């Protein structure tokens, strides 16, 4: 969902660049109080892994592909603040090195994928986790459902931007239904990849998973 330059006018792009910058600034502050020596390298690895998996476009329906955003995945692994930063690093690398996603559109894409998708994915994760019984399978399911919904949420972000400042003249409702429809399907792929990755990390190093941490504390055996 990397937006090229030209789709959205300059004014709207500037507004969202400002919003994205504010969100990234808040995330720098949030991540600062949350990250420590142990979790910081994991946040870096999360950015690396998301960059790699975003290269892997999978087929969705005839003539269309999708790829992982990784927003919900990152939020569950390293927390929402660090997730926003990890996604933003990936988007910056892609725009400046690989000509993927326009430079003036970077604020638009950052807002949709680094902020909306992260917080919707994380909020849904927390909600589903609360409903389900405690345990690792619930974390995996909650992460997958968060991932599933984070993708159409980002698509709604684009539709909002289109409504505010499209350079094209096509109706917003047409764009809305097309964007949400295809991104629900892409969200299924997002859910599968997120679920598999979270369950793999939970199986090998559950102590590193941010979204599992409060469970772990309660299960801790006090010694001595």
């Amino acid at each position, binding site marked *: *969902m*990397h937006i*090229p*330059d*030209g*789709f959205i006018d300059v004014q709207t792009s500037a507004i969202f660049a400002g919003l994205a910058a504010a969100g990234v600034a808040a995330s720098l502050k949030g*991540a*600062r109080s949350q*990250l*420590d*020596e142990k*979790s*910081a*390298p*994991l*946040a*870096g*690895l999360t*950015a*690396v*892994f998301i*960059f*790699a*998996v975003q*290269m*892997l*476009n999978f*087929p969705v329906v005839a003539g*269309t*592909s*999708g*790829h992982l955003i990784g927003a919900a995945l990152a939020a569950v692994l390293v927390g929402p603040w*660090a997730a926003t*930063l990890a996604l933003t*690093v990936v988007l*910056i*690398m892609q725009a*400046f*090195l*690989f*000509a*993927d996603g*326009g*430079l003036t559109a970077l604020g638009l894409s950052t807002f949709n994928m680094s902020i909306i998708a992260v917080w919707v994915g994380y909020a849904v994760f927390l909600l589903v986790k609360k409903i389900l019984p405690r345990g690792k399978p619930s974390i995996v399911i909650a992460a997958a459902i968060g991932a599933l919904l984070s993708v159409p949420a980002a*698509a709604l972000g*684009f539709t909002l931007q289109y409504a505010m400042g*499209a*350079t*094209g003249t*096509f109706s917003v409702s047409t*764009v809305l239904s*097309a964007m949400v429809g*295809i*991104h629900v399907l*892409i969200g299924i792929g997002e859910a599968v990849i997120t679920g598999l990755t979270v369950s793999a990390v939970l199986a*090998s*190093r559950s102590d*590193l998973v941010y979204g599992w941490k409060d469970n772990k504390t309660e299960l801790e055996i006090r*010694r*001595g």
Partner: protein
Amino acid sequence: MDGKITKQSWRFVVDKNKKFLAAGFLVSLFLAGVVSFYASSHPDGLEKVAEDIGFIETAKDHTYADGALADYGVKGIENERASVGVAGVIGVIGTAIVGGALFTFIARKPKKSLNK
């Protein structure tokens, strides 16, 4: 068992983390360097919607459309498999450097530092 973190147990934790980080990095290198060749080249969701509805015409060329790594290919490498693979490896290493530097910098706790 007094629950204290001994030098030895701390070292064990660090080694375990290093192993995990190394494994994650290698998996990422493999995905971006090898698997990426098999990725679908169809337009993504947004691109497809823009094509179908018609506003794809409003897209401008990317500022760096002629860049050395544009569209995940290395300029000058003719072999497609090698081109996307090397681009992926460069992206993984670049993201590791930028992301690693950013998060290491953020995680530094000035209050805990010794030089007051």
